[in-house]
């Protein structure tokens, strides 16, 4: 009847979140045009220059330079590519796996449901961080391994939500109707069940996106993150951690980028959750 929060403010927060994400994505896509320098161009004689507004800084490096004299602004902008790509790829993969399992479990029920639910239980009982370190330390880090591990960690969230949604939709008349007129199972799944499960998937996805970026940073901290020629924000944070006290900007800049993007994801998640289904469990 009457919403818990004023309409405008709820949307305002969502819009702020969307704006943040939009800016991040734009940075990522336009990185070569936005960044003033190459993110990998090294200048050993220009190391550890502070941001422009600190004494000793200069306008040529707005956010300062890192331990190898690379421009931090350029690295943060390019870092958006890797970090967001990790986030998106993990979300898509996790959503694919999780939704498929959720739909199968929810729609067919019976032993399939029991089996898949058991799988969900096992996965949930696994200490995730340990699993991630374990897998990455054994197989080595890198973009795809990290994405895979993140997807492995998040599919459960999709599976649970989707399974619940499918079970409730399954009982509704239009599904029965479709079944009685002989629509094949795949058709029912695609045209009747899946569309109804989309909104919870999107909500979980925006939270997972935020979580993925944060987890990537944590994995980098433990030395098993994405590590390549181009930096992710997590890698930058990790690289700069020895200089926390002497050159705080090495960690502060990617840290702020992470916090903002995660904030954006969480705000969007909250907002979508409110819009789609206020009771949807996190």
């Amino acid at each position, binding site marked *: 009847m*009457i*919403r818990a929060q*004023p*309409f*405008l*403010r709820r949307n305002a927060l969502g819009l702020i979140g969307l704006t943040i994400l939009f800016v991040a994505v734009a940075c990522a896509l336009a990185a070569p045009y936005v960044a003033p320098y190459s993110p990998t161009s090294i200048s050993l004689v220009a190391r550890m220059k502070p941001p422009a507004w600190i004494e000793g800084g200069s306008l040529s490096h707005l956010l300062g330079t890192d331990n190898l004299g690379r421009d931090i602004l350029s690295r943060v902008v390019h870092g958006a590519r890797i970090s967001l790509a990790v986030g998106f790829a993990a979300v898509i993969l996790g959503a694919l796996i999780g939704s498929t399992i959720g739909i199968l479990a929810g729609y067919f029920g019976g032993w399939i449901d029991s089996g898949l639910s058991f799988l969900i239980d096992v996965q949930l009982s696994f200490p995730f961080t340990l699993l991630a370190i374990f897998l990455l330390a054994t197989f080595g880090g890198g973009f795809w391994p990290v994405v895979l591990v993140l997807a492995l960690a998040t599919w459960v969230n999709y599976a649970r939500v989707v399974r619940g949604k499918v079970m409730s939709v399954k009982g509704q008349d239009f599904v029965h109707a479709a079944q009685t007129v002989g629509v094949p199972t795949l058709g029912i799944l695609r045209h009747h069940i899946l569309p109804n499960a989309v909104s919870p998937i999107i909500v979980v996805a925006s939270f997972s996106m935020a979580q993925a970026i944060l987890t990537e940073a944590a994995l980098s901290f433990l030395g098993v993150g994405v590590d390549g020629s181009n930096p992710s924000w997590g890698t930058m944070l990790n690289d700069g951690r020895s200089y926390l006290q002497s050159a705080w900007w090495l960690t502060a800049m990617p840290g702020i980028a992470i916090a903002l993007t995660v904030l954006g994801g969480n705000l969007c998640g909250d907002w979508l959750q409110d819009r789609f289904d206020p009771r949807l469990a996190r």
Partner: protein
Amino acid sequence: MTQAVLDIENLSVTFRRGGVPVRAVRDVSLRMAPGEVVGLVGESGSGKSVAMMSAMRLLDEKRAEIAAKRLDVDGRPVGGLGRRGLEALRGPVVSYIFQDPATALNPLLTVGWQIGEGLRRHRGLSREAARREAVALLAKVGVPAPERRVRQFPHQLSGGMRQRVMIAMALSLAPKLLIADEPTTALDVTVQAEIVRLVQGIQAAEGMAMVWVTHDLALLARLARRIVVMYAGRIVEDAPADRLYAAPAHPYTAGLLASTSRLDVAFADQKPIPGSPPDPALDPVSCAFAPRCFRASERCRAERPELLAHGGRRRVACFHPLAEAEP
């Protein structure tokens, strides 16, 4: 004249949502004598529940703005009551039966506890005494094996059972005014009749005043002596039941009667009112019913009719009433 048990003058309730005010109740005036039974009818969203809840100040006042020239219950100006005053009013003076007993009862507490709570608060009964009283009340509302039931939780009871618990709760302090807010809509048809009979019997026995809020005119036929019809937040007709049924004065009332399932009218003859109620966010200066009214004139679309006496005990807000005023 005896003191009215409920005396409302020019009550308006406005909800604020994201800057757009929504006026759910507009300029409602209603006066009830002790022991009087009033049926309050209207479509959902017509403001009938909101009006009744504001009499008990049960609305969330962070969102609802209540304005009234007079809002008295049993002679007490409700609008000026502090927290203490309100607590003293709710229960012993006026109590409320909510529509859906499935959600209106706390799932984590035994029904005995929930019935006894008011008694302990207002009569200072001990836990044990309150429990005994709860057993008696359950017996009174026709719950079998009340000794066992008091220890049960709401989810262990059927829908009808739960509504009886709600009723027992509302009656526990013998209020002067009982507001029953569609207490049967959430129930099976067969159970509905039982509940109606139960409430009717208790009202007759105890003699308290009662407002029965419903969208079902037919139901009120054997319950209420006086019927008040609301549309788009306003009272459009207020008349003794027999005269209203016999000859509705407001076209909306007529429409309601025509659309009501009555056993004596063939299904084919039941006519729904065309169109739908106006957006409550709008605040027309015209008659709100005009767009759906078959008698609407230019005047109806330009000016709003006031609720005026239409004969002795009748009030109507219409420029073109169907029934002639009676003396």
